[in-house]
């Protein structure tokens, strides 16, 4: 699998590690339901068949955490952007080797 890192360009998946679901947001620790919200945040995951936004860390490259949209059925990657800048448009998704 190849991941189009917006900084490094398309790179082999071996350079990355995956942390899973990128749609989760760390809950407000001061909220009254923080205990159950953190339980869900830490343990509960959907397992969708289809497009999935997930976090990948480019540890073998630029060290960016990326938000990658990957189809879990085909491994087709349709988007990859910096997690720190989630509103930025996808760059470098062209599959040029």
């Amino acid at each position, binding site marked *: *699998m*190849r*991941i189009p890192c917006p900084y490094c360009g*398309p790179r*082999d*998946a071996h350079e990355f*590690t995956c*942390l899973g679901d990128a749609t989760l947001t*760390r*809950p407000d*620790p*001061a909220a009254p339901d*923080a*205990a159950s919200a*953190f*339980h869900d*945040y*830490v*343990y509960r995951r959907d397992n969708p068949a289809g497009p999935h936004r997930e*976090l990948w*860390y480019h*540890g073998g490259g630029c*060290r*960016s*955490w990326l938000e990658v949209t990957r189809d879990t059925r*085909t*491994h*087709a*990657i349709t988007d990859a952007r*910096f*997690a*720190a*800048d989630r509103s930025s448009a996808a760059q470098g998704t062209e*599959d*040029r*080797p």
Partner: protein
Amino acid sequence: MTAPTAQNTGPSRRLAKGGLIDRSQPLEFDFDGRPLSGVAGDTLASALLANGVTLVGRSFKYHRPRGILTAGSEEPNALVELRSGARREPNTRATMVELYDRLSATSQNRWPSLEHDALSINRLAAPLFGAGFYYKTFMWPAALWERLYEPLIRRAAGLGRAADHEDPDRYEKATAHCDLLVIGAGPAGLMAALTAARSGARVILADEDFRLGGRLLSDAPEVDGAPAPLWVDRVLGELASFPDVTVMPRTTVFGVYDGGTYGAVERVSDHRAEPLPWQPRQRLWRIVARRSLLAAGAIERPIVFGGNDRPGVMMAGAMRAYANRFAVAAAREAVAVFANNDSAWSAARDLSRLGVRVAAVIDVRERVDPALTAPLAAAGARLMLGSRVIATSGKRLSVVEVLTGGKRETLKVDGLAMSGGWSPTVNLTCHLGSRPVWNDALSAFLPGSLPPGMTVAGAANGRFGLAACLADGAASATAALADLGFAVPSAALPRADDDPAGLIPFWHVAESKGAAFVDHQNDVTAKDIAIAHREGFRAVEHLKRYTTLGMATDQGKTANLTGLAIMSALTGKDIPETGTTMFRPPYSPVAIGAFGGSHRGKAFRPTRLTPTHGWATEHGAVFVETGPWLRAQYFPRPGERDWLETVNREVTAVRTGVGLCDVSTLGKIDIQGPDAATLLERVYINGWSGLEVGKARYGVMLREDGMVMDDGTTARLGPTHFVMTTTTANAVKVFQHLEHALQVLWPELDARIASVSDQWAQIAVAGPKARETLARIVDAPFDLGNAAFPYMAAAELTVLGGLRARLFRLSFSGELAYEIAVPARQGDRLVRALMDAGAPFGITPYGTEALGVLRIEKGHAAGNELNGQTTAHDLGLGRMMSGKKDFIGRVMSNRPGLRDPDRPALVGLRPLPPGARLRAGSHLIPVGQPTDAANDQGYLTSVAHSPTLGHAIGLALLAGGPRRIGERLRAVDPLRNEEVEVEVCNPVFVDPQGEKLRV
């Protein structure tokens, strides 16, 4: 030893002329110890046939004599052991072995000899070995499996023997990128590569054969009015003129992976007795291609009839290839042809033209184009239309029994060419999970949905004619390249004809006598499929597993479809309803060594050496692997009897004088920015904002689930500048964790981190004489005094006359201690200077063993206790948790189960009998209670002999923890059958008030 097999030879069957071989280059080789000779351009299979060797192995289950069935990588029968000793390689397909001088091959799965095999008795016991045999016979008693059944089966069934020495060869891995990867160098592949090359694209053309051309070599057609091999040479010559075109013969593209990545194995040296100096045996390629073109051709399929596995029965296309390409007649006397399609008639025509006597052509069809039949009739062949072969006989084929016109007739022939039609080689199209699609007109599976970026051309796409292949290759390449934005110059196609390819589907001769084989390699017969059907294993996945159809090393390349067709006839459903054939990587077997590449032995992963490694080696250190690092474990001195004596001396030196230890392996992370302190507040459980510049603090970080992740000290070097240390094991994990916090959780924080683990050599100097030692290397006017540089102080300074350094007053040992860091390249200089400076105080280098004893004596948690299942409370660090802020893991660490006072928590243990030894891993059981799981209250995590106290000490995780201090328990080691009574105590064994480290 192998008995001579005198019968297994004969006069040369090499045709007097022709073939793509070099008769001027004879090659000597041996088979089962018998010297034979071939020529350059031969495969082992063609050379064996040329020498009249038609019996080459015994079959997997029934030990039936087997010959050579095909001329390609789909070969199920002719598996041999190649080479000898450490280079012995079992199950090598003779059809794929390029002959080299002094090649040595051995037949396999026979005893005592190929000719006379004692276990061919299995044939008589065939009913026992039929479909579902294992499942039915060995259900019970299970106890007999290991003792009786398995050894018996292993002796009777099997293939070759793996080498029993270490592989002496080297393997490599490499990566290549291209615009177009062309897989297969037959007519479609060559035409595609040429088209792409002329457009300026980066092209890789790979083919498993050592000579490129595919069926252009074996079918001997004409291209542009001349013999096809001349055209092939011209194309290869032109391809060689393009700098961005790479032609890779002897290279099998074995797998398709995500993102346009292809796996390929290049057999760099397999055509030599051994690799040339500095050459690998094989090279594993990862090819990243923007587009790929699969031009893998087609595989001819057998017809299932009685005795279709007898040596002498061969695929028609293979017999044609041996005659045209290798100038070998597969039979000495005469051949018969048995087919359901036109291509076998072309094969028969070629054989006849080359002087092989074709006695008869048997076709199941009632009518065949007279243009095909006439030349054979003219050459004296009997035309037996509407007929079928029902049986064969002879150890090597001598008689074929034919059902023709309602009567049985026998033909005396020593060769039988069969053809059940052609199956496009769609294997690679399935590797990402798509299924091929049945085509009724061709009676074959064609590629289904394709891996992204792949197109399929030529016979692999069901276009069997030569002109069609050439046109399809050019058109497919043009389309793929246009897609990539290349301008493809138009060029005229070479002139060629399409062979006739008429066919009626025909799979199995119902009137067969004797075993009729579907899967030659796994010995699966038509009857086995009938049994599977009768017993309800009709779905194709059940059929495969019940009969082992298609599950041998050839993945059923010649077997899957016929098996499916027979099941389809039994169920009355059509083939697509019955199932499809699926293929997985690798296309053909790949040596594990190739996947390993150079990563074996010490090169499996890099060994990291500390900056003082060379010095430690000079001082006789014994090293230990800790993760990727090689660290000094202890420094034995002459006269010391064992490691314990050495370690005791090292520990005592630290407690009474001074010692030094390289701690460069600790992770070191530089943290800078206005929000650096805020980052620390959020990842550590304790407070950081109040830490003064020039001070360090011990910190504990949790995972978000509330468990301890790592610990270490962090020093503040400036208002916005910190340097963090992590444990050796977690250096990478913590770094990634901090990046996650900064980029994913709180991107608004203005802080940046960099790993500086490799940039600094860091040495711990510990013991009452540590200050006096350091004083001798620190540059003036730096004041090491306790008031100016107290416990937990940190500073940047110079040592040894201007060498930049960092000094931290930290203590892992509990003594007056420092850690001093210098740029990594200066680590060797620093350790030597420290040894000189400490010499008057008897400075003693210590290793990881003494380090461990010192920390156990002080009750510090380390890897054994930071095991991912312990909380800060469990480790006695709960009171560090700040109540004034949020941090990662805070919310979850307050879950009731994690605050349960009965959770196992850190305690110290000492043995009650004087001199008794403690064992790590021992379980803690109350005195007087049975040793069982219900009474298991915890276990010893770390143990040591404390030379300071003169007895064994241990750390343990004990239910209830510190409130049980003073209790007596049994420490039970059921593995060693040992038990010792212990007393629970404070885990800080030495200087519990922490006075020594503050002096």
